[in-house]
């Protein structure tokens, strides 16, 4: 039996919106799981149901062997870091962190020790007397984390906690969260809409779309073998190229381009996907295209081009000398392509 089990969880809001549909998921003790998906896909709702902040319309959640559907949030022993941190504005940093402990009837001395230990761990021990309004964004983030850590809960829940930080700080905090989670080994669920965050943080990623789990797997599995067209598009930056095509006897027809897939598939309406960095540019490539636009990113560059009327991009080292308007030759290897059936979006 897993540490956290979600069985056929459904959430229907009073206005009839179905936010989460028949979702089942098992999470092991100590695992770092990331829920990722576009905004409004139900990932936050799912997290809030685990926290107990939303009622569960249908299904069952069990934590550490106990069904927690009807257990009060305060009794579930979960801690949550909110997107806007939700620090208590009228309390000092120390009291922010101590509040949950006080409510548990822990002795003053023990609270002191715990808060000071965690503050040292997060390097906020100089700030304990300050009010949240006197802290920078990064410091607030740390306090919010500290407040969760100090309670030593069964699960950490993170609800897009990095989205209010600037890019540099976000990368820094991301690393720190990962480091802390490894160090403490507490089961964590992290919600984000940012696929980079998901890829870098998670032991496992749960890709959610329209209230349905599209795929669960390690970052590597999800990147290298997306189960659906949605996952293929959502994970990876720049986005995977998807060409609408017709496949006859294992040959994909994209405009006047032909790609031999080395199988015997026959699909009328298919999508052929290839990651921008899997397109191999070489002087003796089979196909020829014109670079419409070149984006220079430092070590890499991205070339935008068209096959027929379908746009695509390729990513290559910027050492290659290629400018907008130039023609270039490339190959698409049939071992690197992903094939999806457009009728249901699933992988072929």
């Amino acid at each position: 039996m897993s540490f956290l089990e979600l069985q056929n969880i459904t959430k229907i809001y009073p206005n009839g919106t179905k936010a989460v549909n028949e979702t089942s998921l098992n999470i092991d003790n100590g695992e770092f799981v990331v829920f990722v998906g576009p905004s409004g896909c139900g990932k936050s709702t799912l997290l809030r149901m685990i926290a107990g902040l939303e009622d569960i319309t249908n299904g069952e959640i069990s934590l550490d062997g106990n069904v927690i559907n009807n257990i009060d949030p305060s009794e579930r022993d979960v801690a949550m870091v909110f997107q806007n941190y939700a620090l208590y504005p009228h309390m000092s940093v120390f009291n922010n962190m101590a509040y949950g402990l006080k409510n548990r009837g822990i002795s003053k001395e023990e609270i002191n020790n715990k808060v000071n230990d965690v503050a040292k761990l997060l390097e906020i021990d100089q700030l304990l007397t300050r009010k949240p309004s006197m802290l920078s964004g990064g410091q607030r983030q740390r306090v919010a984390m500290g407040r969760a850590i100090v309670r030593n809960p069964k699960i950490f829940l993170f609800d897009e906690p990095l989205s209010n930080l600037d890019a540099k700080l976000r990368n820094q905090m991301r690393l720190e969260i990962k480091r802390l989670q490894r160090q403490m080994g507490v089961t964590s669920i992290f919600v984000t809409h940012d696929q980079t965050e998901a890829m870098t943080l998670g032991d496992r990623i749960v890709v959610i779309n329209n209230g349905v789990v599209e795929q669960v797997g390690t970052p590597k599995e999800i990147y290298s073998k997306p189960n659906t067209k949605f996952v293929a598009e959502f994970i990876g930056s720049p986005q995977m190229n998807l060409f609408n095509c017709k496949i006859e006897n294992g040959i994909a027809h994209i405009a006047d381009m032909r790609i031999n897939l080395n199988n015997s598939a026959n699909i009328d309406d298919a999508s052929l996907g290839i990651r921008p960095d899997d397109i191999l540019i070489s002087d003796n490539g089979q196909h020829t295209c014109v670079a419409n636009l070149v984006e220079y990113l430092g070590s890499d560059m991205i070339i935008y081009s068209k096959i027929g009327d379908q746009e695509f991009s390729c990513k290559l080292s910027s050492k290659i000398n290629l400018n907008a308007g130039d023609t270039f030759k490339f190959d698409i290897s049939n071992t690197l392509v992903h094939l999806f059936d457009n009728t249901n979006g699933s992988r072929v």
Partner: protein
Amino acid sequence: MKFKPVEILTHIILILGVLLMVLPIWFSFATSTHDNVSIMTEGMKFFLGESFSQNYNEVLNEKGGWSEEVTAARMFVNSFIMALGIATLKVVISAMSAYALVYFRFKLAVPIFWLIFITLLVPLEVRIFPSYKIVSDLGLTNTYTGLILPLVASATATFFFRQFYKTIPDELLESAKLDGANSWRFFIDFLLPLSKTMLAAMFIFMFVYGYSQYLWPLIMTTDEKYWTVVMGMKIIFTENYEGVALPRTGERFAYIILSMLPPVLVVVILQRWFIKGLIQTEK
């Protein structure tokens, strides 16, 4: 330093405004320090006289009223108890009812709120007879309870607290829930400290409201022991008016000046808190 003409004009207007407010009070105070003979013969005074201690002493300690038993000092105590009771209870009750209206999802919360709000249209003066009937049936005439109780509900304060609570982000409540705070703790540990400013402001308004009540204590009290300052203003030091004695204008002005002090003190003391709260925006 040079002033623009507009600045000079605005300052003149402001100074005129201040004079308009302060001069009558100054005249009253100056007059209250003169003896009755000179007031009678020379009218209102601008400069201070020599009867300050005599007049104020008489005002505070002379036994007056028909029973010749009640002193002004006693009336001050009565008014203070009444205003304090009304202000405290009004603030507590409206903060709590607003909490119920905003945070507890029960049916008819909105209609109930509007029902409370509509009571603004029915001030005490309109419902004074039914209110009197109820209070007297309960045997509460000539008691502090009777003076305070019918005035402790406040639609205005409930409205202000409700609007304030609505601006508090939901995450704060959720976070507090996860930290193990129950409804009561959330009110005490979060809403009250966060609405400090609002509490101070409401307390000021309601204290002044309670202090300046006239009609209700007038009807409610037959026992002079329960007279309040504002009632006394009409009654006190007038008993000698009909005889040959001089009208006691000096004492009456002294009484008026004293009667202004408690609300002024409350405003001055709480205003500091109030402004401090406004500067430190905590939300």
